[in-house]
């Protein structure tokens, strides 16, 4: 089992090493990076390569750690008891398995994605310490111990909105996905759009990285935005020459809506373009 990227996902050397180390040493891998650098994609592609299932646990601000283990549906048991259902005598009927339980008891070694862990409450990671460390937990209601048949490959992503507790971090490996360089970007584009004109890509990349370098942008465009933008350029059949002209003479790039997601950014670039025209 060695991960080297896939046909549709380019992973640089560092990331490959990080993933492989996490697989071999059976440690959770915490991935951080700018939005749009393919953090969530990594887990999907990894599951594809390893030919195993991906169990996704998307974290929201209201998610509790307990929900990842199991939930006890007390309300429906209550209702059943008042209806006189026979089911009510077995508490196990009302235990709903969470994502981590599913991952622990899966037949194959699965990939468990805990997506955007920083969205949850500050205490959330602390509540998962033992579960991630020992890969086991205890169900109070049925008095049974759930132990992982094999340790799942755990990928955790974070957008850095909250700082994670030290005790949690110590149990993870950490990798920061850096923004791709021009060459890496080129190969990412090649993977996604094999038939695109190279001249257009070159020009587009130039505009893209120049835009990213503008100081004071609220939201820098990222890989996924570049890919969308390129697609639009291809659909609209915009020539590289036109793109070049626009860029060098000053003026917003065509289809800027795909790259800039904020009206302040658009007006900032407009102002800059206006200044360079004069």
């Amino acid at each position: 089992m060695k991960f080297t990227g896939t046909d549709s996902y380019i992973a640089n050397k560092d990331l490959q090493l990080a993933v492989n180390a996490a697989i071999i040493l059976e440690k959770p891998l915490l991935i951080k990076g700018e939005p749009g650098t393919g953090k969530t994609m990594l887990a999907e592609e990894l599951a594809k390569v390893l030919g195993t299932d991906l169990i996704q646990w998307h974290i929201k601000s209201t998610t509790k750690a307990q929900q990842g283990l199991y939930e006890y549906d007390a309300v429906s048991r209550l209702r059943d008891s008042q209806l006189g259902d026979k089911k009510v005598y077995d508490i196990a009927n009302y235990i709903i398995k969470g994502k981590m339980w599913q991952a622990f008891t899966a037949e194959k070694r699965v990939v468990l994605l805990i997506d955007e862990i920083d969205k949850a409450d500050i205490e959330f990671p602390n509540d998962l310490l033992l579960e991630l460390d020992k890969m086991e937990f205890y169900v109070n209601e049925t008095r049974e111990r759930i132990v992982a048949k094999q340790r799942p490959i755990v990928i955790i992503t974070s957008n850095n909105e909250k700082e994670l507790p030290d005790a949690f971090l110590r149990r993870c490996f950490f990798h920061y996905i850096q923004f791709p360089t021009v060459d890496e970007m080129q190969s990412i584009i090649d993977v996604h759009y094999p038939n695109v004109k190279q001249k257009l890509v070159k020009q587009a990349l130039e505009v893209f990285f120049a835009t990213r370098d503008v100081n004071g942008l609220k939201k820098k465009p990222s890989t996924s935005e570049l890919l969308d933008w390129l697609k639009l350029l291809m659909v609209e059949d915009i020539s590289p020459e036109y793109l070049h002209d626009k860029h060098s003479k000053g003026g917003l790039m065509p289809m800027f809506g795909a790259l800039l997601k904020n009206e302040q950014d658009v007006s900032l670039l407009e102002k800059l373009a206006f200044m360079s025209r004069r």
Partner: protein
Amino acid sequence: MLVEFFLCLRKHRVPCTLRELLDLINALKKQVIFADVDAFYTLSRLILVKDEVHYDKFDRAFAEYFDNVQSVDLFDESIPENWLRKEFEKHLSAAEKAQLEAMGGLEKLLETLKERLKEQQKRHAGGNKWVGTGGTSPFGAYGYNPEGIRIGQDGNRSFRAVKVWDKREFRNFDADTEMGTRNMKLALRKLRKFARTGASDELDLDKTIQFTAQNAGMLDIHMRPERHNAVNVLVFFDVGGSMDEHIQSVESLFSAMHSEFKHLEFFYFHNCIYEGVWKDNKRRYKESVDVMEVLNHYGRGYKVIFVGDATMGPYEITYPGGSVEHQNQESGQVWMNRVLNHFDKSIWLNPQPEQYWSYHHSIGIIKSLMSDNMFPLTLDGISQGIKQLT
């Protein structure tokens, strides 16, 4: 060797613990990587560093440690000699090249180097030799290792004049540097106090179950209010004068705070707090608010943050009538103390770099007034300050 590396990291204040060192050793044991310094760099960073904020410190520590011990595996069959030579010439200045000619040319030098290395190989079984910089060998003099060129052991045997860890790509992430809004928000987020207040609109399941059970099965529903961040913050911003040069950092702090705290009140002052502060900078002379009123209005539970450079004449703080703008009846010191005594927790954030603090007498006075709770307006400083507030 790893232990020393570990200690070196600790020296550079990379927060890593024994557990992580053991993980690293375990990874090496399992042969995740093999004899590859670059991969070791990545792996050790993966395991030992848990926040990109510390990447820069890690890079520096790594460079320091591995500048002293450089693995050299020269003249393995697979290094083409002319390629090696070219690499040498790249690093020589014209003067050095001339000097080199006098020594008998590069040819001869390489010959000697080769012999020297062979000798070393015999003496040190295994073939690798840790070569330090400097020393009396002629190679040092000709720029063999002035920048720590490494002839490594990766597959392509490539040179890298500047190593990854020497590029210090993560310098921007270092917590000691001043940062933008987003990062400030991160620092401010630590100031949280969850509380359940307001209307009860959430079903308290546990309580409901408990009471229903006690009620012998008759439903007894209990509600509770939702949790939210209930921290109250009061900020005083210094405006005008010497603060002009810090406008950008203060602005980003302001916008970060604005989006982070629900209960945020802010006032402006100039240089030091006197009897009046104001809410709108344009109308400051007309619509100032009495500080006494502020104290009466906001309870002692409010967390108070002063933002200012505290750079002024000492008399502006200590003497009545010392203010540069108006005739103040009581000294700034008195007013400051009044505010500080009213609130439980307060800090002062200073945009002035910390190393200059000692040159301004007034900063020292304010700092002692604040009982040392003055922090630089950097990400690190904010974090420390917030810790003080919580």
